[in-house]
């Protein structure tokens, strides 16, 4: 039993943490948030250069990581800094799906930071249901609509799920292909997404099925949970500092027991969240991975809400302002609940898998 990071992962964590602390300040991020692109090409190139994107892939895929704990290390740091660049959607999910399809030349470009991807799966009315796919594949062309597609505008290629008869399969579509329409918009927690429609759009079958997409979603569940954990660490850190420095009634407000105990509760719950992320990363390849991932996502959803709300409440008004770091961090935490199934979705899934 050893819960220490390996030397390589420790180095990755230190490097990424230092880089983001120096470069990804609140002011820099606020500029990115209000930019048209919603992401910084410079930051993306530097993340690739630091090896952050390569850490998401195994050596056989051309990377130098790719295991659950590599994802956990990277995304915890991205979450701590509130990074809005689409590492999860573009590089991790998109890249790993292309790797599964044997597209090694494209994976190489993903790792180099020169290729952006989007995964277009969910559809209007489908909520979090994985097999809700009405987009049709017929004779090499796709027709249908996809909902809240992350990074759709910046992507060079989209990976699209569609039904050919009864079976759901994945297809590769060039963004500028005929019949592709993207209605883009900003997201509350930063970054951009879009409603994407395909009208007889030429598409290349990737030879992947829904189970491959489920496997990529499992990676994403580790990533989003670790990201939320990192953000929760920032939120509790900011709150603790504020409680010790803000004075009212002639003393630091953290000396009021009503607040001190609640701060202690947050720290207790934060350790629960940390362990849950370790469970998700550690059991990612286990036969009962789905059960562990749902347990983690449910717990992160519950604790995330508590941490976000209590951090804002204990700060008071200052935490409601856009220019204060916690505002963005709290939004990242709560909005993570709206990705890959929310607290209730994973509770039901956990119940079903436990009974099986």
């Amino acid at each position, binding site marked *: 039993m050893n819960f220490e990071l390996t030397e390589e992962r420790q180095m990755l964590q230190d490097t990424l943490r230092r880089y983001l602390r120096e470069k990804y300040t609140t002011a820099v991020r606020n500029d990115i948030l209000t930019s048209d692109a919603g992401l910084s090409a410079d930051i993306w190139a530097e993340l690739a250069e630091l090896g952050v994107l390569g850490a998401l892939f195994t050596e056989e895929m051309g990377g130098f990581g790719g295991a659950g704990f590599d994802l956990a290390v990277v995304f915890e740091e991205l979450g701590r800094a509130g990074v809005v660049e689409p590492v999860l959607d573009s590089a991790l999910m998109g890249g790993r799906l292309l790797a599964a399809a044997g597209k090694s030349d494209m994976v190489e470009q993903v790792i180099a930071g020169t290729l952006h991807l989007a995964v277009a799966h969910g559809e209007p009315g489908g*909520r*979090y249901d994985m097999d809700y796919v009405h987009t049709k594949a017929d004779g090499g062309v796709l027709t249908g609509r996809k909902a809240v597609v992350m990074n759709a505008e910046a992507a060079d290629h989209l990976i699209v799920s569609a039904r050919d008869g009864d079976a759901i399969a994945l297809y590769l579509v060039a963004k500028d292909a005929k019949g592709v329409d993207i209605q883009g918009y*900003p997201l*509350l927690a930063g970054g951009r*997404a879009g409603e994407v429609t395909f009208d007889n759009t030429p598409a290349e079958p990737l030879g992947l099925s829904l189970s491959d997409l489920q496997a990529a979603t499992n990676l994403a569940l580790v990533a989003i949970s670790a990201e939320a954990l990192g953000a929760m660490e920032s939120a509790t850190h900011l709150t603790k500092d504020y409680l010790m420095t803000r004075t009212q009634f002639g003393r630091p407000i953290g000396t009021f027991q009503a607040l001190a105990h609640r701060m202690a509760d947050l720290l207790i719950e934060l350790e629960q969240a940390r362990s849950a992320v370790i469970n998700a990363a550690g059991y990612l390849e286990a036969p009962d991975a789905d059960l562990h991932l749902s347990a983690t996502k449910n717990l992160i959803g519950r604790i995330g809400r508590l941490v976000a709300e209590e951090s*804002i409440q204990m700060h008071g008004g200052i935490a409601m302002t856009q220019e204060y770091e916690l505002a963005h961090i709290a939004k990242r935490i*709560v909005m993570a609940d709206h990705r890959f199934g*929310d607290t209730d979705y994973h509770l039901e899934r956990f119940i079903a898998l436990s009974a099986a």
Partner: protein
Amino acid sequence: MDMSFTDDELAFQSEVREFLRDELPSEIVDKVAKGIELGKDEVERWHAILNARGWLAPNWPKSFGGGEWNAVQRHIFDTEAAAANAPRIVPFGLSMLGPVLQKFGSKEQQDHWLPRILDGSDWWCQGYSEPGAGSDLASLKTRAVRDGDHYVVNGQKTWTTLGQHANMIFCLVRTDPDVKQQEGISFLLIDMNTPGIEVRPIILLDGSDEVNEVWFTDVRVPVENLVGEENKGWTYAKYLLTHERANIAGVGFSQAGLAAVKRMARAENHNGKPLIENPHFAARVAQVDIDLRAMATSNLRIISKAAAGGAPGLEASMLKVKGSIIRQEINDLARRVAGPYAMPFASEALEGANDTIPDPLGAGPVAAQYFNNRKLSIFGGSNEIQRGIIAKVTMSGGRA
């Protein structure tokens, strides 16, 4: 014990419903239903409609042009208005300053300022909180120094709601720094167009710009704008706070919000069925519904006591805590219903981006509202301050 409205109260309820049906503009209803912030002209339009009916200042005595409604009538109006998605009445002039002037203002102040509140000549904002004086309001530092026929004001106020629309601000200022904090505060009326005043917007985490910082640099205020006596401002401020607490539970808002959640959850699909039929989600909704029904009766109990002349003190603090928790829980349900579509964001900062925001449930910016309404448990005396009051009064015989 009789929980039903009297015949008179029922007749009044019908009258209110009819008025809202006939007079409330549909453009305003659409915006309020989706939680979209109203412009100044829309708020003024609604105020003018209410004023024409004599219902803009229901809490004021008839002698000042008010409706002199009792607490039950006000409750009926608030509940019906919220259910009809009428905008909230902007309270600063009507619910806060008005009662203070009526009780403590001079005859000249009453004659001058009160009619201007009713006819919309003045838009008031509140200058209470400061960066260093939030929960500990009495520690405020904005200084007013007497200089002939004027006070000269220097300092900074913050969290000034809708200050960008206001032409007048009522302020708590320190006129005597050498006495006990509460005994050196005065209540001043300040024209926002006086040289030396600067209003800076505060952008909130949902992108809204409803609150501001107001900076005062050598602002000269005529002494006739002092309300009551110098250094007695804390008394007036506390009196004002008791009026700020009218409709503090927000029962009507919660009922309207919960109805919207149920409507959206009937339209949202989950595994081939309406989300409202999902046992886990249905349990979440039911739990809030059950809490809200009890709170609605707590609210009525306190209202009927107030209508009979009793003063709500401790109970107002209890309603503030419970009411804010329930409203925030409903905001949380609304963002859950929206699923992935809770994430898109209509940002004021990104012009032109808002036309493409998908909103399949017609829910409006539910996640933004979830974040914006975190303020409910922070402003007007945070829930921690309210709990402190409840504990102090109950356990050590202190006063609210």
